[in-house]
C-alpha cells in the first residue's frame, strides 16, 4: 500500500499485522497506511477485529506478529465517553497533559469548538450522552493529534445527535487535518466522512476503495448508492433495491380483511 496522492506522509503504517487471542487469530496479515490529513474509514462486521486493530494502534494490545508504526501524538475517541466521574468536565479534557498545558483556558477553548464551553465546570455525571461524547471529542482535540482514532464514536448516540456529531467531526477534521482512522459498521457514515474506505473481513483488508464524492456530502445519489451497494456486498449484505419491499404485501382478500396477525 503506497501513499495516497494529495495527502501528507504516512501517519499510520501496518505491515503484515497478525493478532491472536490464544488459538484464535483475529487479524491475519493486515496491511494498511493512513496518511496525515487523510480520513480513512475501516468497515467490518461485528467481531471482525476492528476494535482490536485500533487497540493495537493505541498500544493497548500487543501485536502477535508484524509491524505497527504510529505517531506519538495520537488520541482515541472510544465508543463510550469514558470520562472520569470525579473530575469536572474541563479537567477531564486536559487529563494527563503536562502541567503547563493542562490549563483551564486550553480546556475551555477546546470545549468551545464542540460547543460546550458553558459546561466546563459541570460534573460528567450531569451530562447527557451526546454532551459527554462531545467532551470526549474535545479531550481528543486538545492534544492536537497527528492521528485521531475513532472507535464507533457515534454508535451509542441517538440519530439526531449522531448526525450533528458527524457534521462536527467532518468540520473539525477539515480544519485541523489530522490523520483519522474511523472504525464503524455503518456504511453510510463511512461514505459521508471518509476519503478512503477499507473493509476488514476474515482478518484481512478485503477491499480498499477511494471515495471520490464531493464535500459536503449527503446520503444518496447514484455514485453514493453505487459505492454503498459495493461495500454492502463486500460485507455480505445483499440489498437488491432498497425501495422495494423485502416481502411482498399480500393482496387483500375478498372480504377486505388483511392477512392474519
Amino acid at each position, binding site marked *: 500500500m503506497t501513499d495516497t496522492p494529495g495527502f501528507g506522509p504516512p501517519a499510520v503504517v501496518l505491515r503484515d499485522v497478525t493478532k491472536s487471542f490464544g488459538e484464535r487469530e483475529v487479524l491475519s496479515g493486515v496491511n494498511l497506511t493512513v496518511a496525515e490529513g487523510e480520513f480513512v474509514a475501516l468497515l467490518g462486521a461485528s467481531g471482525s477485529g476492528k476494535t482490536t486493530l485500533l487497540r493495537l494502534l*493505541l*498500544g*493497548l494490545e500487543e501485536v502477535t506478529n508484524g509491524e505497527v508504526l504510529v505517531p506519538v501524538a495520537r*488520541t*482515541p475517541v*472510544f465508543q*463510550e465517553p*469514558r*470520562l*472520569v*466521574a*470525579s*473530575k*469536572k468536565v474541563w479537567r477531564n479534557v486536559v*487529563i*494527563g*497533559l503536562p502541567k503547563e498545558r493542562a490549563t483551564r483556558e486550553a480546556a475551555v477553548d477546546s470545549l468551545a469548538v464542540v460547543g460546550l464551553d458553558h459546561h466546563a465546570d459541570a*460534573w*460528567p*455525571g*450531569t*451530562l*447527557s*450522552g451526546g454532551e459527554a461524547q462531545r467532551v470526549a471529542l474535545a*479531550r481528543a482535540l486538545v*492534544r492536537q493529534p497527528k492521528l485521531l482514532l475513532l472507535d464507533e464514536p457515534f454508535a451509542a448516540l441517538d440519530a439526531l445527535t449522531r448526525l450533528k456529531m458527524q457534521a462536527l467531526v467532518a468540520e473539525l477534521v477539515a480544519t485541523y487535518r489530522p490523520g483519522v482512522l474511523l472504525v464503524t459498521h455503518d456504511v453510510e457514515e463511512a461514505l459521508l466522512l471518509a476519503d478512503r474506505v477499507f473493509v476488514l473481513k476474515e482478518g484481512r483488508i478485503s477491499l480498499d476503495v477511494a471515495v471520490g464524492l464531493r464535500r459536503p456530502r449527503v446520503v444518496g445519489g447514484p455514485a453514493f448508492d453505487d459505492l454503498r451497494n459495493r461495500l454492502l456486498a463486500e460485507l455480505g449484505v445483499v440489498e437488491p433495491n432498497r425501495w422495494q*419491499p423485502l*416481502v411482498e*404485501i*399480500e393482496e387483500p382478500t375478498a372480504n377486505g380483511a*388483511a*392477512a392474519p*396477525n
Partner: protein
Amino acid sequence: MAEQFTRPFGSLGSAEQQAAFGTSDGELSDGSGLISPEPVHKPTRSRQRSLGLRVVGPLAVLGVWWLLTATGVIKPFTLASPPTVWRTFWDLLLHQNLLSDIGVSLVRATVGLAIGAGTGLILGVTVGLFALGEELLDSTLQMFRTIPFPALLFLFIAWFGIGETPKVLLIALATMFPMYLNASNGVRNVDRKVVEAARSFGLKGRSLIRQVVIPLSMPSILNGLRFSVGVSIIALVFAESIASNSGIGYLLNNASAVQNIPVIVVCIILYAILGILADLFVRTLERRLMPWRRQVAVR
C-alpha cells in the same frame, strides 16, 4: 408478514408503554385515561427538619429510660436514672479530671486509626492494582485477619509493657483490616475502561492512582473508614480496660470493680457520643471528598 402491520405498540413491555398503559400506586386517573405522573423523588426536607427527625430516636430512648427509673420499674442498682448519671458526669468532670481521660482516649483512638487505616489503604490499593501485590500480600493478610485482635493485646503487653504502644498498636491492627478489604475491593471495581482511557491520555503511575483510581474507589474507601472507626472504639475500650491507668476504659474498669453503676453508664454514654461524632466526621468527609456524587443524571 410485514412487521409494521402486526406490532401496533413497537417493543412490548417498554418503559414508555408501562408509563402509558399502567398506573402505579398513588397515581389517580381523572376519567380521561390520563394521569399526572407521581414524581419518584419526593421533595427533600429542610436541614432543620431532617435534623429534628434524627434526634427523635435518641430522645425517645432517654424518655423511656427516665420514666422507667423514675417510677421504680428499674431499680437504681440495676440502672442509674438520668439525673444521677448527669450528676455523676459533672462530679467526674470537676473532681476527677474526666476531661483528661477523654483526651487520652481520643488521642489513642485517632493515632491508632490513622496508622491502621492509612496502612490498610496503602495495602488495599497495592493489592487491588497489582497482581504481584495480590499474590504476595493477600493470603498473608487474610490469615492475620481471622485472628481475634484481643488475643494479640497480651502479646503486645509482653513485648512493650503497658505504655501507649500496645494500645495504639492494637487499635492500628484492628482498624487496618476493614480498610484493607474495602479499599482493595474498591480499587478492583474501578471501571477498567476509564482507567484504560486515562492511560491512553498519558496518565500513569502515581498520578493515575491519585487522579483516577483513588477518587473512583472513594465510596469503598470511605465505607472502609466507617468500619475502621467503629472497630477503633471497640479496640480502644478493650485496650484501656485491660492494661491502663488513664482513659475512659480505665475509668470504666475501675467503676466495674466496685459496681459503680452511674460511672459505668457515664462511660458507655461517652463511647456512644464518640461513635456519633466519628460518624459525623465520616459523613462530612463523604460530602467533601465526593462532590461529584451529589447531582448525577440517570442515563
